[in-house]
């Protein structure tokens, strides 16, 4: 069957890097399956409970980089109880026991203990990269172990983490011989940090390209760090509080002008409300700007900054920028590809449909959007769809739940319908505002490439959910809360769920009986009912509505680490 020796085929496969493509390659024939699996270095597991670590290691013994995701997305919004699951220890333990030469571990929404980090740091000689996103369960002691034991560490990246800061000394645990750091991000840590140790670490890391500081790093330290690392490409500023006449500030201004490589800027975790003019020289080269953690920067100052950012491709900002500010973005940032506007929680600071329309008209390359706004109209969405059919991600969150179009008082079905009809490459969609079954009809009809859909407080009947399940052939993740979809919708096409990664339904109309029927019919799904305190304690009545249901396909049956309040049916 093969015209070439295995080594040649393997070499060809080296050029096939995406996991999707490699999966396709492995389905061609047994020989290709074997060659592919032995040569695969990078494995992505979208649901850590879909497979066991032993089977992954068995299939891919050459594994060097592992990405794991644990909790479902709605866990980000406090919809999942604390101890639900997603512990990574069993994975690290299994990898340590095997002969896998792990070099990179990337985790999202998983629970990581200090013991686990300790084990990780001691088990893999060539371990180079640890990326933790939205994880929990560890303290800075675990970080100290990583720093101390991973001799060739290149990357330590913590995002959206809430960590118990025991001491600020973990940074001192990097040995003097550690000179390999390329990326260090500890911006989310709340505690103090040993500034001298940090300065020395940066001084001996000539390859450092990305440095994101936490709020405990003051301005004068920032200036010293930048002097040592003028080659930085990505900078996250911790504290930006200063006295305008101070020498420290004047020095920083001069140093920043010299940092010509900075392309990405974030942070400003503590900031004086005015005068970011020191940053202006850096702005002209920026391709990425994240000010979503800086509520201290006023709208006017944001606007002044944006005017300098002509090359911006990615912008994450708070709604304090206002519609006027978004107009400035639309005028200035012609290269913009991704925009995220987060709610600042301040009542009068919000954006509306005006800002979005301006952006869609002014930024032709925009394809990824996350937009929290005060209100939205059908007319605006239709205009956006006309202006821009490139969206691959379109996530809209109107802060007032179930709010209709304020001009016509109609649901937003037509607006979202226009978006899905126009944007043929749409892969991710989040809906909000007042919506009926009609919007789901449109989604089922037009959103052919849709992979992930988030629904909240929408729809009238089971028909809505059925339109989506029937129409969206590429759907992988569906998450629904507070919508009137029940057993009929859930049970009409049970085979569909094996083509998807997962389904989340909370505060809907599905009953215990419906879930049990599903679980019986589909043994290769785990149907989990998350039973919070007072619901369903003593009654096992089939007709009782289920508070939270999470189902996912799996090759390894019900998980053994489920806590008491999770029932796998």
């Amino acid at each position: 069957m093969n015209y070439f020796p295995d080594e040649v085929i393997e070499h060809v496969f080296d050029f096939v890097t995406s996991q999707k493509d490699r999966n396709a390659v492995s389905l061609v024939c047994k020989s290709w399956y074997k060659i592919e699996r032995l040569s695969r270095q990078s494995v992505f597991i979208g649901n850590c409970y879909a497979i066991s670590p032993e089977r992954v290691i068995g299939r891919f013994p050459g594994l060097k980089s592992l990405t794991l995701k644990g909790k479902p997305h709605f866990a980000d919004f406090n919809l999942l109880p604390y101890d639900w699951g997603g512990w990574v220890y069993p994975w690290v333990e299994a990898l340590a026991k095997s002969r896998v030469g792990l070099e990179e571990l990337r985790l999202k929404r998983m629970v990581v203990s200090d013991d686990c980090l300790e084990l990780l740091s001691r088990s893999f000689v060539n371990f180079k990269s640890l990326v933790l996103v939205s994880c929990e369960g560890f303290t800075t002691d675990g970080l100290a172990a990583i720093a101390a034991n991973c001799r060739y560490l290149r990357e330590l990246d913590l995002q959206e983490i809430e960590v118990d800061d025991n001491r600020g000394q973990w940074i001192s645990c990097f040995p003097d011989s550690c000179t390999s750091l390329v990326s260090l991000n500890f911006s989310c840590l709340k505690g103090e940090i040993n500034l001298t140790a940090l300065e020395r670490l940066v001084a001996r890391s000539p390859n450092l390209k990305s440095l994101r500081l936490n709020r405990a790093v003051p301005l004068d330290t920032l200036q010293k760090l930048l002097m040592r690392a003028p080659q930085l490409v990505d900078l996250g500023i911790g504290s930006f509080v200063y006295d305008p006449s101070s020498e420290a500030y004047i020095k920083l201004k001069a140093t920043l002008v010299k940092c010509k490589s900075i392309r990405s800027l974030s942070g400003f975790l503590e900031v004086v409300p005015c005068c970011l003019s020191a940053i202006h020289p850096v702005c002209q080269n920026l391709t990425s700007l994240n000010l979503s953690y800086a509520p201290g920067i006023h709208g006017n100052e944001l606007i002044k900054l944006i005017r300098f950012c002509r090359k911006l491709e990615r912008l994450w900002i708070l709604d304090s920028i206002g519609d006027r500010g978004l107009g400035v973005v639309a005028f200035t940032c012609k290269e913009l590809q991704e925009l995220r506007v987060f709610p600042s929680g301040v009542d009068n600071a919000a954006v509306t449909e005006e800002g979005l329309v301006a952006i869609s008209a002014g930024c032709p390359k925009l394809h990824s959007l996350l937009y929290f706004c005060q209100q939205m109209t059908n007319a605006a969405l239709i205009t956006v769809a006309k202006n821009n059919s490139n969206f691959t991600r379109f996530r809209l969150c109107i802060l007032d739940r179930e709010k209709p179009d304020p001009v016509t008082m109609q649901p937003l079905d037509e607006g979202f319908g226009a978006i899905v009809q126009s944007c043929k490459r749409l892969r991710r969609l989040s809906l909000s505002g007042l919506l009926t079954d009609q919007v789901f009809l449109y989604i089922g009809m037009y959103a052919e490439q849709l992979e992930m859909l988030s629904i909240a407080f929408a729809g009238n009947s089971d028909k809505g959910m059925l339109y989506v399940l029937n129409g969206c052939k590429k759907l992988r993740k569906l998450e629904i809360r507070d919508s009137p979809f029940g057993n009929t919708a859930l049970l009409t096409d049970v085979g569909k769920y094996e083509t998807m990664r997962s389904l989340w339904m909370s505060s809907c109309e599905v009953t215990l009986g419906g879930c049990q029927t599903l679980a019986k019919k589909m043994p290769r799904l785990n149907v989990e009912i998350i039973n919070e305190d007072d619901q369903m304690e003593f009654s096992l009545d089939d007709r009782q509505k289920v508070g939270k249901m999470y189902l996912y396909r799996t090759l390894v049956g019900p998980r053994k680490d489920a806590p008491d309040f999770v029932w796998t049916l």
Partner: protein
Amino acid sequence: MGRARAASCSSSSTESSTQIRRNLSTDLRLGLSISASQQDDPFSLPSVGDDDQASDWPPTKPLIMRRALEEEENEGSSATFFVKVYMEGIPIGRKLDLLAHDGYHDLIRTLDYMFSTNIIWSEMDGSVSAYSETCHVLTYEDKEGDWMMVGDVPWEMFLSTVRRLKITRAM
């Protein structure tokens, strides 16, 4: 954390399911939380979570919202720069935090309000005569002790040299 489910209060809810769900956001804000109903009511809704700590709306990651709330709490303790402000003819002066303003326009707005007048400064356009009824000129004392008109230098440079402000009658 249990959540009571609010049953619809209208008897018309039993009508056809194609009826558009009415906008119940007002009801939700009133915090209606009628105890759990077992009936399969197409309009039954959960009440708004009343636990502020563990809020699940808006659907944004907790760290961002928490930073915004912290910022509101910390507003009082961030850097300040208070200067004295005197109005000509009034012996008792006021104090003003310059760092709480983001530029000259903001500052003038505050002073207009504080002293109930119209302030002239260097960026005003030529139509000053229209305002000559009740208006004043804003000046500042710099580090060298000289009195200068406000607005000529960049805001930041102004912050680094200003010692106090004086509002004098227009000449």
